[in-house]
């Protein structure tokens, strides 16, 4: 059996196994477990698309929160019925055409992705004129601009009040379905010669250009694809927690994604997946430190901020002492497991 057929088969088996696990959880899992699993899938989608820019292209993009926000608001505005929208927008009415349209969930998710992509395209010119720290601060700036706009454009976003009462469409099948598609497509891209060109830009942009690689085209490609999947994930997130407001999409969200991909290993999709899963699980587990602890005789009050202290320390320790994270730039693949000389 040749490798290609074997890998296809193994992928199929893996997917069926994942499906089985999800089925069992959706039947017998507690709400708590299902919430963590949903978070995991959405974080995986976000981290893998974020890693495409930061890990594969090697540029420090600090504005994925903008993509997620745009995806979330777009999808939410599309799935809500005109009636619900009227109830939500009490300070200032929702502007046409958002006030009239309604779309099915899948279409709304895709629209969220497309809107995020359009936004990414619009900002790409100023963003990719600079590199390094400057690029970081410009993307952070665009992230902030979107947050400011979410607060200010009350006729579209309902301002600081946000949107409430979204239908909880996101379930395990949606969230994991999107995660699987994202991982497969982005992995394919990274393994293609387009991905090679991106990594070449990461390693040495001057040399890459001298070998005929157009940096702008490839960085833009990565940026747009990343924005699309982040936007879709934003739509999923909105319909998971059913209430969105601008405070959900601050730099804080970007920081969390950064932790996931750094801990997993910058440049590794496998690492991004692992990082996202650890974060979803660890984030919940660490809630203990912020909630009051009852030790029988006395109670320790919860300490707000403690979780973030732990996360920040983890991020710094990883970046300073184990820079390669869990996976380095390596990938876990069938070839890596079964072949002595992987290709």
């Amino acid at each position: 059996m040749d490798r290609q057929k074997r890998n296809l088969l193994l992928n199929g088996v893996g997917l069926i196994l994942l499906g089985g696990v999800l089925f069992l959880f959706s039947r017998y899992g507690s709400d708590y477990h299902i919430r963590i699993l949903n978070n995991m899938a959405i974080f995986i989608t976000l981290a893998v698309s974020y890693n495409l820019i930061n890990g594969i292209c090697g540029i420090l993009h600090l504005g994925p929160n903008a993509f997620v926000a745009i995806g979330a608001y777009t999808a939410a505005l599309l799935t809500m019925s005109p009636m619900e929208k009227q109830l939500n927008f009490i300070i200032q009415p929702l502007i046409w055409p958002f006030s009239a349209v309604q779309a099915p969930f899948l279409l709304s998710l895709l629209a969220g992705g497309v809107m995020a992509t359009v936004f990414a395209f619009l900002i790409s010119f100023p963003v990719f004129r600079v590199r390094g720290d400057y690029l970081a601060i410009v993307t952070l700036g665009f992230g902030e601009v979107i947050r400011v706009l979410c607060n200010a454009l009350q006729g579209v976003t309902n301002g600081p009040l946000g949107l409430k009462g979204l239908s909880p469409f996101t379930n395990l099948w949606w969230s994991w379905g999107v995660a699987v598609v994202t991982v497969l497509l982005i992995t394919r891209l990274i393994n293609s010669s387009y991905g090679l060109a991106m990594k070449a830009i990461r390693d040495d942009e001057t040399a890459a250009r001298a070998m005929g690689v157009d940096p702008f085209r490839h960085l833009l490609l990565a940026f747009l694809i990343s924005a699309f999947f982040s936007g879709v994930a934003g739509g999923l997130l909105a319909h998971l927690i059913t209430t969105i407001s601008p405070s959900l999409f601050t730099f804080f969200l970007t920081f969390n994604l950064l932790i996931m991909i750094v801990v997993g290993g910058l440049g590794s999709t496998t690492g991004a997946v692992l990082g996202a899963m650890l974060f979803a699980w660890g984030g919940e587990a660490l809630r203990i430190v912020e909630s009051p602890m009852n030790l029988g005789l006395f109670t320790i009050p919860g300490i707000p901020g403690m979780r973030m202290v732990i996360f920040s320390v983890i991020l710094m320790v990883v970046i300073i002492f184990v820079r390669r994270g869990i996976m380095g730039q390596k990938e876990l693949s069938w070839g890596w497991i079964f072949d002595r000389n992987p290709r």
Partner: protein
Amino acid sequence: MGTFFQADRLVMQFGGLTAVNEFSMTLQPGELVGLIGPNGAGKTTVFNMITGAYTPTSGDVLWQEEKITRLPVQLITARGIARTFQNIRLFNDLTVLENVMVSMHHKIRSRFWEAMLGFSRYREERRRMYEESMDYLQEMGLAHLAEEKASSLAYGQQRRLEIARALATRPRLLLLDEPAAGMNPLETMELAEMVRGLRQKYGLTIFLIEHDMKFVMGLCERIKVLDYGITIAEGTPAEIQKNPDVIKAYLGEQKNA
């Protein structure tokens, strides 16, 4: 047929400093020409102007009837001028094979979605890229190292990988920036053989910078000498060796060293 390659009075100034002054030359198809001169004479700056890394302060580069002076680097590469770097600049996190495959990417016809969705056109192109890359590695004696990381290669191997990578862009003019630097005499001799072979096999025109006089004199048909950014001599190796200005420039350097 008009000019194949011409550099026309190229000037490069950094701030008030003139790094290269009025550099002119023409190349005929198939020529093998050397550019020599003491350290800091502006040799690499000439390469940087030809390949578009620097925009010359004045002057023009003509390539097959076209003015390419202000084109971005990657478009000049796409038109058939490739280079190697003096201070080796490989893609260190990629494998040897991948380093070469990067150079073939700019000729790809499949779009990114065909690659993402695994269309057969892309798979066919990918297979060809792989095979052709392996050919170039074979050519430079690196095929057995294809799956190694580029950064793990020995110095001489890295220099040869630089050449393989440049070849893979399918150039008609190849610029080699000190290809023999850091090599031992045996490696240098092998390299000279390789360069001759490459010119023959791929019908290349080669323009190279080198400090190893034996290498340059034995290999090049024509040599240009640069000192403080100014062309002080041009001719066959025999003529250059006898030229008093050249001897003075090099003696001066030795005295200072």
